[in-house]
């Protein structure tokens, strides 16, 4: 979403209907906050301050409250990220099996250079994350919503090739 120009509400039409369905699952509106934030992120790729304000209005909480929740959870992006967002697990079990080498290879092949930076072509952002819950199949990597097991240094180019 652009910082300039009129703000276009996210919760209209089909997305509003989706949120109304979410409301029926909980006794309070506030409980729909995490699901609402997921809808925002799926729509725009990240969660802007304007979007937080809108979510607050729709749920009847302040924008500051929404921000407090967004900042608590690491999967919500508060800034735009590359077209493909790569999360590499480097916690002990994956680490024992070479996860740091995989991170290096991914940084090199994506041209990101540093963790958290987006590649010049806007294609990738890479971060290290803690245990993804697939420790027996190291290295565990997430690319966008895809969960990939058993990534090795040699497999990195092919893996990245799947995400133009």
């Amino acid at each position: 979403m652009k910082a300039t120009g009129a703000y276009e509400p996210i919760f209209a039409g089909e997305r509003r209907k989706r949120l109304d369905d979410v409301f029926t699952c909980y006794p309070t509106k506030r409980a729909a906050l995490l699901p609402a934030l997921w809808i925002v992120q799926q729509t725009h790729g990240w969660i802007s301050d304007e979007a937080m304000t809108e979510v607050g209005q729709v749920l009847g909480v302040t924008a500051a409250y929404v921000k407090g929740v967004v900042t608590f959870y690491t999967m919500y992006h508060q800034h735009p990220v590359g077209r493909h967002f790569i999360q590499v697990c480097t916690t002990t079990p994956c680490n024992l099996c070479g996860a740091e080498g995989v991170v290096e290879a991914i940084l090199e092949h994506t041209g990101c250079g540093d963790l958290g930076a987006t590649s010049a072509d806007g294609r990738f952002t890479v971060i290290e994350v803690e245990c993804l819950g697939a420790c027996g199949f190291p290295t565990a990597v997430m690319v966008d919503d895809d969960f990939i097991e058993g990534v090795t240094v040699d497999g990195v180019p092919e893996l990245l090739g799947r995400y133009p």
Partner: protein
Amino acid sequence: MGYPHEPHPKETLILSKHFGDAGARSYDGWVKCGGYQALKRALAMDPADVIEIVKESGLRGRGGAGFPTGLKWSFMPKERRKPHYLCCNADESEPGTFKDREIMRWTPHALIEGCAIAQHAIQAEVCYIYIRGEFTEPIAIMQAALDEAYREGVLGGNAMGTNRRIDMYIHRGAGAYICGEETALMNSIEGRRGNPRIRPPFPAQQGVFGMPTTINNVETLVSVLPVLNEGAEWYKDLSLGNPKSTGTKLFSVCGHVRKPGNYEVTMGFPLGELVNDLCGGMRDGRTLKACIPGGSSVPILNREETEACLLDYEGCVEQGTMLGSGGVIVFDDSADMVYQIMRLARFYAHESCAQCTQCREGTAWTVRILERILRGEGEMKDLDLLLDLSEQMTGKTICVLSDSCAAPIVSGIKKFRDEFEAYITGAKQPVAALT
């Protein structure tokens, strides 16, 4: 089975019988496997009788603490004066643990059935299945199974034709290990930051939305199925002689073994046999150095302790550790214990919710001191400092995340002190990446 490997003859396949068989995933497939019989039985019984059978079976929570499941259910008010809730804990974020994911991927209807039985027992109309945000595939599979279960009349206003309401919803997490802690999980469902709550009040009195609530782990809930299908006595007899630890348990084995994966064995199975036999032993002719048997939050065992440890609640305590979640992390002789313990400390520092000073500051300082040692800038007195810090972090905070960070530090320094000292004396080269 030792999923993704062929089943091993020493396994006892009950929960994992259908792992790898996509046919068991659908409603029809699950019914063909004998599914929804346990729920039918339960719904024909008085809730108190369901609780009694589960108590009898000796089933204990598989999420980490090992609390007796029937007893936990019995804490819920007997009369339903206000809404009761069940929360299914599918946050699975404890390093080394990856069993609940497999249960949800292969047998989603087993989990729905287990939740519905528990809901009947504690008289909860609504269950939230809290699944960690990264588990996109298990979430999709569970959602498809829930849709089917509603279509088939297992769930909804006339569940299984009993004229009773059973509802179940998935609540997707968003990246926070601490939300696996049961009170943080409830806050997260309520749309709050995932900070653990001070107890009392306990969840059975005042849980999610202030209502009586029970929280159970995924594996605990699916373990209720064999208890109802085969009976409490049958379930109890599965254990190898210890009546306090009954049934089977999934052990996720990872690290330096030839065949990592999920293995289902009866309680009391020898850890050494699991690692050396079922998992094929160490890779590349290496030797076993250490093992964490219950997820990263429990003390580390050295080789002798690993060989002597029996995998049940008491057997682990006897070796100075805990069964925890059953996430078995194996280290061979090539592992740098100091570095890997630092990685664990980083995990806890990253995941601390920062409410308690001892935890927020303690985890951060632990990382800083360990990094200093790994850079070759440590002093002998840093080891005492680490132990002192760990003591300050144990038993003093709102939840046990702080204690969990201390566990590998204290046991690591005790059992692998020479490796720490080697960095301090300069006998070992500093870790280049940290300098």
